[in-house]
């Protein structure tokens, strides 16, 4: 005995949502999906620029960790790094590039899509 067509339509709609969510999950930008890199991009999105020490304090991480992940973001073109001096003390400053800001916006849209899809199927 077949199921009513309305129930079948509902199931199909849920399947579409789940497929969208699965696609969103696989389309995630792996560069900023990593937790610390996501933190760096988020922190820089809230300010014009941040020094290495300020970023380290905001993210509660170590020099080595921050250096590695910031360099990865720099290589992806998401972050711009300026090295200079404040008096005699070396100072490294990071800034989010336009590509980095777009990447964060896309990532946020992905997360919202996942949540929305989950809400639709629950």
């Amino acid at each position, binding site marked *: 005995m077949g199921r009513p067509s309305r129930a079948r339509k509902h199931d199909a709609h849920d399947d579409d949502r789940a497929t969208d969510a699965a696609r969103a999950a696989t389309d995630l930008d792996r560069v900023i999906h990593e937790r610390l890199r*996501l933190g760096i991009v988020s*922190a820089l999105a809230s300010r014009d620029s941040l020094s290495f020490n*300020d970023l380290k*304090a*905001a*993210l509660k991480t170590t020099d080595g960790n921050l250096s590695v992940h910031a360099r990865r973001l720099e290589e992806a073109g998401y972050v711009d790094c300026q090295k200079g001096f404040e008096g005699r003390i070396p100072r490294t400053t990071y800034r989010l590039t336009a590509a980095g800001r777009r990447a*964060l916006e896309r990532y946020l849209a992905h997360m919202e899509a996942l949540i929305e899809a*989950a809400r639709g199927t629950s």
Partner: protein
Amino acid sequence: MPLPSPLDRHAREDLRYIRETMARAGAFSAVPGWGTALVGASALLVAALAPAVRARSGGPGWLLAWGVELLVAVLIIAVALPRKARATGEDVLSGPARRFFTSFLVPAAVAAVLTIALARAGAWELVPGAWLSLYGCALVAGWGGLTREVVPGMGLSFVALGAAAFLTPTWGDAWLALGFGGFHVFIGLLIARRYGG
């Protein structure tokens, strides 16, 4: 087909993490290290002179000496803070900065009223405890507006010093020297060393 819940949970956690990181990084952090240390040095000078002033001119003279110190401290910070903010690319009129300064307003007003009341009652020995406690409360209240992790710690230390000053009122100037002098010098140098300027 139901969506696996860990995916949804992960997305929510990511969004929360982004929000919290943005709030932390967007907070006001232009606390001037050298300026704070200089405020501490001027307070140490006044604390050294205050007992002699009090012996000669009594409570009102002592209050005047610390009043002058307050003015000097405000002037130092008024010069140092915008300089630090320029160096760090922050706006001293931004939301977090305004919240931080606003957190000082109520404790400052209460400190002024308490000082008048205690002075009228002739209870000069209790004034240092009131100042230190309320200053500490203001720093702790400004916690949310700061990223400098040392500042809330300093606030709690001032509250503890205030309690000590209430319990040992004859040591008032020594507690003021330790708090407004020593703590400021120490924290200022720490900020200058860790975060620059």
